[in-house]
């Protein structure tokens, strides 16, 4: 592994100045993905690491409209927050179904949004073909054994999955990301933060080098909304999702008045199921409606033999989550 210099920044602007000025520098937060990729796999090799975890970016505040979370708040800290439990229960569920307590004590909210894919081909330096790691070399996952891979937003260029659980309810909620750069702060909706791989799988989000996530702003659910996060995986705990659904609905007189849907375990980016929301809105809360919504959610998937099962699994996961949250029995 390449040697690197380690720096603790005192202020966000100082951290941004250091990384912006050095193309070889990168941020370090909890390190639970980054150090793995650096120390163990040699996939990342920055020459300078700026530790952001002692920056004054650790806070959670709530007002009538939103919960604001400093970027270095840990996943465990956010899960323990009373306002999150009361007003955004599916965010709490997604946090507590992520990783393990040890990892959640280390991992930050900003870092969670920046986590790299778990694609085994991306993480294996012996694999030649990886458009994300080495643009133009192809995608070994499309032709090799695949399972923990994406079916939505995917193509023959890249099927690497975004494995964040937290980001799934956050995209459904229209979370806003505050990004600090040399010229100041800009605010980007999380639904526009991630970029589908297209022809440039190496470009994963809208950040330019040196920009730092300082805060996320999570709009609260409408009064009367009910939410749930359902995660389906190969073992009961401490495992990534094969498919997951974050759903929040408002039902009045057995009619769905509002619906927000995110899907996990299936997308190259945390997936907002806009078409499914349109099917649900102002429709009767019924099994038939839920199935129509699921069809709309997983339209035009890109599958390989190892991921074909996810089409049906994602639909059933969403349908079950909708049954749970509406208490409409099948």
């Amino acid at each position: 592994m390449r040697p690197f210099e380690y720096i603790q920044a005192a202020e966000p602007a100082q951290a941004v100045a250091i990384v912006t000025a050095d193309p070889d520098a990168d941020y370090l937060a909890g390190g639970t993905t980054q150090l793995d990729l650096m120390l163990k796999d040699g996939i990342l090799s920055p020459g300078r690491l700026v530790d952001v975890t002692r920056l004054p970016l650790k806070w959670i505040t709530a007002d009538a409209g939103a919960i604001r979370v400093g970027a270095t708040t840990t996943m465990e800290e956010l899960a323990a927050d009373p306002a999150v439990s009361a007003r955004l229960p599916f965010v709490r569920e997604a946090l507590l179904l992520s990783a393990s307590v040890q990892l959640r004590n280390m991992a930050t909210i900003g870092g969670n949004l920046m986590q790299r894919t778990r694609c085994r081909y991306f993480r294996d330096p012996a694999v030649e073909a990886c458009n994300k790691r080495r643009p133009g070399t192809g995608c070994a996952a499309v032709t090799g054994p695949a399972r923990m891979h994406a079916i939505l937003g995917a193509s023959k260029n890249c099927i690497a999955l975004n494995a964040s659980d937290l980001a799934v309810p956050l995209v459904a909620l229209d979370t806003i990301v505050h990004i600090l750069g040399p010229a100041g702060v800009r605010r980007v909706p999380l639904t526009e933060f991630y970029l589908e791989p297209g022809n440039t799988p190496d470009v994963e989000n809208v950040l330019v080098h040196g920009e730092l996530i300082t805060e996320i702003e999570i709009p609260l659910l409408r009064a009367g909304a009910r939410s749930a996060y359902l995660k389906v995986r190969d073992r009961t705990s401490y495992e990534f999702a094969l498919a997951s659904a974050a759903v929040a609905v408002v039902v009045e007189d057995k009619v769905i008045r509002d619906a927000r849907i995110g899907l996990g375990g299936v997308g190259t980016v945390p997936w907002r199921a806009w078409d499914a929301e349109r099917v649900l809105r102002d429709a009767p809360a019924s099994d038939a409606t839920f199935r129509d919504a699921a069809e709309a959610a997983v339209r035009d998937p890109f599958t390989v033999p190892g991921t074909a099962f996810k089409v049906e699994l994602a639909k059933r996961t969403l349908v079950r989550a909708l049954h749970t949250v509406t208490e409409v029995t099948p």
Partner: protein
Amino acid sequence: MSNVDNDRQGAIPEVAVTMRINGKSQRLQTDARVTLLDALRDRLGLTGTKKGCDQGACGACTVLVDGRRVLSCLTLAAKCDGREVLTIEGLASDGGRHPLQDAFIRHDAFQCGYCTPGQIMSAVGLLGEGRADSDEDIREFMSGNICRCGAYSNIVGAIREVAARGGA
């Protein structure tokens, strides 16, 4: 915390780290790449903390930093400057074993024993978090600690017993 070498053309960058480990202040001058796990085992002779997968998947390297359980294999030693670290060696007090250590022995909560320090340190964290109310919760919130011998049922039993007595 000081950056001893800012010249990347020169020697390998080092960091100076002062940690309080098991109640005792320790100062280290080390390559910035060294993990807390390797610093504990190779520099400080604290080999109770185990290196299992060394990539954040098994929990054998679990220690407490400032009272919270973390994975020492994915923590840079440099990050721990000024922090309080508790390892399995620091768990006993006044020469007596920690109640969890006794319970693990009584319940035969291990076979090969390699995951055991991590299991016990994780369980110390669990009790501190107040999350050992049921077997289901113990299983869920201990899921970051893998035991390939499969001693899980006895591990849960040991933790349940200590939790029922009001923790540590």
